[in-house]
């Protein structure tokens, strides 16, 4: 059997299993919005963790991190992985847990709905939806682009980037639109297992082929010893290192597709266990991702710029046989699908509940229609993503960097909205809009850099505007605040 035929066979098996899981979930899902969009809020530790982790991990880690480590060396581990091992659990506790408590108390299904109810302001829900849409779209592009690259390299160009991208979008939208949240969470367990197992396996195989870990390090030292230390590269200078750390630790709670998954937890114990597992599994995933990129620099010298995103599939091609190459492709697809499905589902739920229900309620005659509109929106979203992927505008890391920075500007609203009674709807809108304006101005170089990355400007503006405008404007009626903040304050033992 030829390599391409083996690749195809392995991936057909993978896709069949994924669709099978999606079908079983579909059979168990009712047309009720709470069940379709949140899986009935019954996720326990293992499923919740795998759903969050699977959603969190994208080709940014599997292809983007080896790609950037190829040029920047082992410093990428400290710059990215270390700080999120603390940052993600911390934000899950500070923002995710209160959101979970409040969403459960008022029956909110989307993040925009939760904050709309908190402020008694549909405008806040709309602004949040727009911001989420603007930053999720490019993030979806990174995922699909990653699959396209992997398919293109591993099949030696027999299947093009465009074919790979189209295939992944069709399958993902199919099972997501049918089975909703339950389908995405169940498939994420399988998908997370596939990509985590594969990257660890590949790490072991490549190390063995080098003659061991010490020999692999020696090969890098002989090729370019600067890859074994952070050095004077601009991203490791204090200001840039700190602002990127801020961005990458805060961004995850800013992802709407992660935020909403916290609503699905069956109880606090599941949320606490997720926080405990996160740093351990991050270590298992990121160490291989960075080292494979660094080892790849010694093995495949000469990849320039975004071409280094191809180092992961190149290593796969050289070090493993056709069957495992098939698993590698399935692993990349798994990482993509487990994120793409959650992103599509979350955006579609916000569109139907927070935009159409508010501004064109005639379109929504009952929950069944709401789910249908969500499904149609997913198809439109997939078409837009496909069009942008074909343009291949920048490297995976650079596109993700833009999205991550945007999500961070939402974090002050997400936190203050749940923990500060004086925070107002006008403050929230000023924070989101002003934070994003500052971010764009900094990206364009119209604000003084001060050695920081643009995300720092966006975050400072979002905090300052949120606080100042809130102090200057009238707070939401007590009945709105009490309804959302009351359960949170009781959970934290701060009863009023």
């Amino acid at each position, binding site marked *: 059997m030829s390599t391409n035929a083996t690749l195809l066979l392995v991936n057909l098996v993978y896709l069949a299993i994924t669709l099978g899981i999606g079908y079983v979930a579909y059979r168990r899902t009712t047309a009720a919005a709470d069940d379709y969009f949140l899986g009935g809020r019954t996720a326990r530790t293992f499923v919740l963790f795998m759903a969050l982790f699977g959603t969190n991990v994208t080709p940014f880690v599997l292809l983007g991190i080896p790609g950037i480590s190829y040029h920047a060396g082992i410093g990428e581990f400290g710059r990215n992985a270390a700080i999120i091992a603390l940052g993600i659990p911390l934000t899950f506790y500070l923002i995710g847990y209160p959101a979970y408590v409040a969403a459960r108390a008022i029956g909110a299904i989307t993040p925009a709905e939760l904050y709309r109810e908190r402020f008694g302001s549909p405008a806040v829900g709309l602004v949040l939806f727009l911001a989420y849409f603007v930053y999720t779209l490019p993030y979806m592009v990174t995922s699909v682009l990653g699959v396209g690259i992997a398919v293109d390299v591993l099949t030696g160009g027999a299947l093009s980037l465009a074919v790979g991208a189209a295939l992944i979008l069709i399958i993902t939208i199919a099972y997501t639109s049918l089975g909703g949240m339950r389908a995405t969470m169940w498939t994420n367990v399988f998908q997370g297992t596939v990509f985590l197992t594969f990257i660890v396996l590949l790490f072991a195989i490549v190390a063995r082929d080098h003659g061991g870990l010490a020999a692999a390090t020696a090969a890098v030292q002989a090729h370019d010893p600067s890859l074994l230390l*952070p*050095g004077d590269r601009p991203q490791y200078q*204090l200001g840039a290192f700190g602002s990127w750390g801020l961005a990458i630790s805060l961004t995850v709670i800013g992802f709407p597709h992660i935020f909403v998954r916290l609503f699905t937890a069956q109880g606090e114990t599941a949320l606490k266990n997720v926080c405990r597992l996160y740093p351990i599994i991050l270590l298992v995933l990121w160490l291989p991702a960075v080292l494979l990129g660094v080892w790849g620099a010694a093995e495949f010298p000469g990849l320039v710029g975004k071409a280094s995103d191809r180092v992961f599939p190149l290593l796969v091609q050289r070090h493993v046989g056709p069957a495992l190459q098939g698993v590698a492709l399935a692993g990349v697809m798994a990482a993509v699908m487990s994120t793409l499905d959650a992103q599509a589902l979350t955006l579609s739920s916000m569109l139907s509940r927070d935009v159409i229900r508010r501004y064109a309620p005639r379109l929504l005659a009952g929950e069944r229609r709401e789910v249908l509109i969500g499904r149609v929106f997913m198809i439109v979203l997939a078409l837009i993503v496909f069009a942008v992927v074909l343009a291949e505008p920048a490297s995976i890391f650079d596109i993700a960097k833009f999205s991550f920075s945007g999500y961070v500007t939402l974090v002050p609203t997400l936190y203050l909205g749940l923990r500060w009674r004086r925070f107002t709807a006008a403050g929230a809108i000023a924070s989101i809009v002003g934070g994003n304006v500052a971010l764009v101005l900094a990206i364009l170089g119209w604000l003084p850099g001060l050695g920081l990355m643009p995300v720092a400007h966006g975050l400072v503006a979002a905090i300052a505007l949120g606080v100042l405008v809130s102090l200057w404007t009238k707070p939401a009626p007590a009945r709105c605040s009490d309804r959302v903040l009351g359960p949170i304050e009781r959970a934290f033992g701060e009863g009023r």
Partner: protein
Amino acid sequence: MVLSRRAHARIFAVACVLLTLLHFDVWNNHRALPLTFGWMPVDLAYHVGWIVVATALVFYMTARVWPTPPAPEPSAETSTRANGE
């Protein structure tokens, strides 16, 4: 001595600040050697160790800082059932 949740929260906050400061290991920026376990460059080994400490801190947070929600008051229906009625 039994500390309150609020006291644990303060300890946790201070530990988080210290650990975050230790994340900025500029002193490792220009050295790769000695290799830990014969293969891990200094900065990489440092941040692996950092994650181990962060993991311990997260366990502390979930055990001592994260509030345990008050048990829901038994509803009339539950009380009746518990009484075997």
